[in-house]
């Protein structure tokens, strides 16, 4: 739904950039979460939530994209 919304409401270049940056963003958030664990010895709830949210969105995006490529 989020993808459809941005695709229809935001111009192609911006939405493209947004979705292209999702995978790197998810990776950076997850790595930052692990660095936080190394620093504090415990997970940051905020970082974890953001990381998993971005990961879920990125994985969904990758799934859709790979399925489209398969067609």
């Amino acid at each position: 739904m989020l993808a459809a919304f941005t695709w229809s409401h935001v111009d192609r270049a911006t939405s493209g950039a947004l979705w292209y940056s999702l995978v790197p963003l998810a990776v950076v958030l997850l790595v930052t979460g692990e660095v936080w664990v190394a620093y504090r010895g415990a997970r940051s709830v905020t970082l974890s939530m953001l990381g998993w949210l971005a990961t879920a969105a990125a994985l969904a995006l990758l799934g859709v994209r790979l399925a489209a490529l398969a067609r």
Partner: protein
Amino acid sequence: MSAWAPAGDLPSIARRRAWRERLALSRPAAASVALLAAGVALWSLSLSHIRLDRMTDIGLPSVLPVGTWVSLALVTAGCAVAWRLAEPALMALGVATTILVLHGLGVLGEPTMRFATAWQHVGIADYIATHGSVDPSIDAYFNWPGFFILGAFVSKVAGLHDIEPVARAAPLFLNALYVPPLVSIGQSLFADRRVVWLGAWIFVVANWIGQDYFSPQGLNFFMYLVVLAIVLRWFRGGPGRERGGWPWRAARALAGRARAVPETTSTWPQRATLIVVVALIVLGIAASHQLTPFALITGTATLTLVGWCRIRTLPVIVALIVGGWLAYMAVTYLVGHVHLVTGDVGAVDVTVGSNVGRRLHGSPGHQAIVELRVVSTLVLWAVAGLGFLRLARGGRLIPALAVLALSPFPLLGLQSYGGEVLLRIALLSLPFMALAAASLFVPAEAGASVSRVAWTALACLGVALVASFPFNRYGNERMDYFSPDEIAGVRALYRIAPQGATLFAGSAALPWRYTKYADYYYYDSLTGGDADVNLDDPDQRRLARDVALRMATPDRSPSLLIITRSTAAQTDLFGPWREGAQLRLRRVLSRSPYFRVAYRNPDAVVFVLRRVPRERR
């Protein structure tokens, strides 16, 4: 101590004495060094007596002089003495010497770089160095170009016009590179260094798989080991520290007693840096190779599952990076090839068939080599299995070792990888199988001496592994070796062929594509396409006509064919034609009006298609 300190003062005397004591070798240690040195000396002398031109279908072992076999025995004996002493420096020397005499055979025993694919990889690096860019439309290699960009960068920075001399030494260099992370992994799992170094030695003598040439998978295997070494050394946690569901609790119940080696202590900036380093290595792996990243996903996922990886999101990070690379950077290849990538998913029977069944054909000598490879691998896996059983019975089973040994096997369900996935699985699991096998021979009690039975069994295994290595590794050497005349033939081909020409080879075993990678249309065989050629055709006129039709280009652009000793050897070894089919073809084409011989030497001949026959079949 200052350089101006008076000579003979007490601290300097004590230091010199300590150095003398350190350098002084006990009698067994001196014997070990002497055996290793004698082995290397004899090995070096024996290299010049190898008659490569007389190789049979069992490859290099058919022409190895007695001196080479004796040198292998001497080095193995030296390693055994070193291992008995359990002195790390000596054991490391033994492993290094073993790498030299086994993996150096193909590097220093042959006048040119072996293995056709290595020449092709040189060509890809050369293309990137020459053009300064990557063109993903050329082929799959350019969609995972990390390794080749590194090769091009190194050749540019080092000022090399030709990277081939460096690429040629890859088997020596890469095997030496694998040992440190492997030892680090071993040290993280076993307190007894005899297990660790014996595991490293078994890895070296069992690594006949041959992916350690100038290749992305060769370097990626090193990075794979480094990631796992970092995880196991600094992020494996301690008993009772993890939380989680039943898999974690069950694993901890198993692992509790096994964590004999404490996690290496580190400060938080060190750990943070290591996490970033791991992420960067994963990025490098994802950008360089198709298969290794998936092995890393299964490896890190299973480690996390059993509670031996404190970077819990690491498998997800790896999956995201790999998925991101596939979906965005490798799109050019994926479009139109998805069926190749995903077509075999779940078809394990097809994969096993293409990996084992399809390889068991060809000449009797070649079949014997393939069977020996299968048996050697199964024997090592069986010994490793016994090692795991022994660890489990003693309550010392190390879940990390078990899951890492087994984690590459799910790749069987992904795809056949051109009939090679079983080989890759054998390689990816080998370090852990080797450590498990090593644990079988070392007593559970720290420092206890090895029993006579264990020594005998180890000696049998060691001799079998070392003796079978030349057969397993160099069994296809008749086609993997290239004579200087063959290299001269390929150089002549490039001199003769105008840019844009179509180039055919008798088979894929040819040292070409090392330059002008995208300047020609390359065909590795005369089969395929609309006009298949039957090299066993008894009608010589029809055979020449069929070859000419196969080579004909729609726009009548130049078309050339090269037949060499190695291309002929490949069809002799693998079939499907009768032995000597390409030599016969060479004679037939030499007399045919459709062809002109443009270059000839004893090992290579280049034909140019003179005219296309009018008649059709």
